[in-house]
């Protein structure tokens, strides 16, 4: 169940990485920011996370697109561009963490939406997790349809496969980058809304989720849509199983173990393409 949310998280980082060649270090902080927005809407306005879900995603898109347009897009092209962008996302991460601390304080917060579980043929399905899984699946499907059937979506895929080629075909690269970074942040925000209905979050924990999303992307395969989902399911399942059969300490680090194993055995990721 958790795998669905991990999947949504890593789709965002995967997209940005694929198109721009940059790991968005503020990814996890977009997740946490959306989580806090959901918490605030729920606690102060009584809004259900189902309503906050699209609103948060839209806000994430605007924030992400603005980050690309105003900050990352201004980095001049060249060999150092990727490094500068990486450092810039690190800065954005700090801005988001500290804004969340100022606005919402440092305490852990969670949204008690749909507590309890459904009992179906001997198995217990936690309501909040089932809902999160369904929402994550729906959002992933939407994204897939967008990338597959719309012009902008196809352009994004083209840029991620070959930037120069896409440029020659008349695709406006800076615009596509704005759209993809926006989409990446929107996906992170959507995941954040779902996350806060399951776990308690605090402003400083975004980095942990950046690392998880990154691990999922590497495990699943860079640039591979089904790979991200598979990677997420693999990570979610192995966290729970290792926690059950071994210990909670090992479950905590299993992401890195898988990360290493995949890099050694299949560097392109489970469903990734070999670099040509």
């Amino acid at each position: 169940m958790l795998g669905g949310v991990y999947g949504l998280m890593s789709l965002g980082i995967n997209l940005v990485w694929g198109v721009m060649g940059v790991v968005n270090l503020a990814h996890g902080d977009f997740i946490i920011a959306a989580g806090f927005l959901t918490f605030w809407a729920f606690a102060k306005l009584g809004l259900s996370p189902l309503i906050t879900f699209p609103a948060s995603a839209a806000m994430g898109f605007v924030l992400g697109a603005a980050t690309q347009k105003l900050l990352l897009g201004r980095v001049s092209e060249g060999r150092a561009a990727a490094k500068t962008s990486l450092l810039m996302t690190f800065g954005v991460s700090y801005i988001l963490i500290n804004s969340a601390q100022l606005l919402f304080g440092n305490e852990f917060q969670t949204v008690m939406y749909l507590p309890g579980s459904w009992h179906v043929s001997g198995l217990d399905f936690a309501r909040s997790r089932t809902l999160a899984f369904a929402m994550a699946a729906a959002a992933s499907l939407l994204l897939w349809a967008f990338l597959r059937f719309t012009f902008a979506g196809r352009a994004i895929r083209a840029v991620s496969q070959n930037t120069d080629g896409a440029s020659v075909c008349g695709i406006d690269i800076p615009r596509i980058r704005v759209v993809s970074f926006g989409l990446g942040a929107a996906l992170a925000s959507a995941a954040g809304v779902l996350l806060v209905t399951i776990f308690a979050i605090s402003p400083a924990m975004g980095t942990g989720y950046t690392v998880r999303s990154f691990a999922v992307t590497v495990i699943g395969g860079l640039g591979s849509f089904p790979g991200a989902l598979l990677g997420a399911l693999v990570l979610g399942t192995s966290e729970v199983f290792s926690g059950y059969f071994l210990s909670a300490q090992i479950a905590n680090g299993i992401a890195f173990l898988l990360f290493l194993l995949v890099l050694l055995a299949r560097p392109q990721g489970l469903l990734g393409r070999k670099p040509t």
Partner: protein
Amino acid sequence: MRTRWIIPVAMAVLGSLGEARGEQKPVVLGASMSLSGSYAAGGKYSLEGTQLWVDDVNERGGLLGRPVRLVYYDDKSDANTGVQLYEKLITADKVDLVIGPYSSAVTSAVSTVAEKHRMTMLGPEAADVKIYQRGHKYNFQAQTQASRYMQGALALAKAKGYRKLAMLSEDTAFPKAVASEVVKLAPGSGLEVVFNETYPKGSSDFSALLTKVKQTGAEVIFANSYLPDSQGIIRQCRELRVEAKMFAVAVGAAEPEFGNLGSTGEYVFGATQWAASMPWPGNAAFASRYQKKFGRAPDYHSASNYAAGQVLEAAVKQAGALDQDKLAKAIAKLKLDTVYGRFEVDEQGIQVGYTSALLQWQKGKQVLVWPEKLAEGAPVLPTPAWSSRQ
């Protein structure tokens, strides 16, 4: 170039003017507090407790006739950061007095800094006695010792004749200390420990551990944890339908924020060391002044920090100076009735005076249910099944 000397001279002149007007150099009290990270909830209450004491002591004329000023930093619930901050407080800020941080984990680390610099340090949030079994001369425990935290829960379980106990603990100093004490005390309460595992600090998914707990058929579940993990564990018990006759948490249920769980947090027991209704001298007045200043009720962390201030005040008065050796000697011999109960340490500096109590969430409120002579209500046991909850 020539103007360079003007500034120091001007400052010296201004400084002497200040002294001439009878302004006293303040006594600076330094501390780090967990204001972010997983200990932030308790850390904030601790800080407010100390702040209230600083206000009060200044109203009484300060320490040795000098006003008291508090300098504090956020240690992010991290022991390494705490060590750096106490080094900074002692060597760079040159504070006159220090007071311990939040949690046994951070205190354990920074106590060595205080010891190294020969600074007397009360640990108002350090329940783990191991910190004080290392032969330190300048560290004193100012929190109820960990072995007493689950006394109430064990007593109730014994009275009801429950037999199987499962325990989940965060793998840091305090929760592990509580767990090892419970393992020692359980047989005397007729309980068999059927499950006893730890989870790393910062965990949020407990489903794997709880699935194992469920299979043990435990009647009593103890979570030796802090606020966010206490909430997570209880919530996931409900989602996984882990049924037990009694749920008790070490830290977390004493915090008002635990009430955010709503019906899920109902009937959960929690250790507490203090309540506004306890008959200690000055306690009721402390609680109402705190409410007035901070707009919320104090919890036991606020009270233990305020009490540590009272102890420090009494020790400074006895020593008649800020000399750290004299302070340490005074605290070692001190027996003082504070808002937190009677302060008294043994020859190692371990707290033997402060006691523990147990509360239960009933109808969205914390009700003190143990010990009997302090109880505000009767405990509700066994805990109703999750399926019967709204």
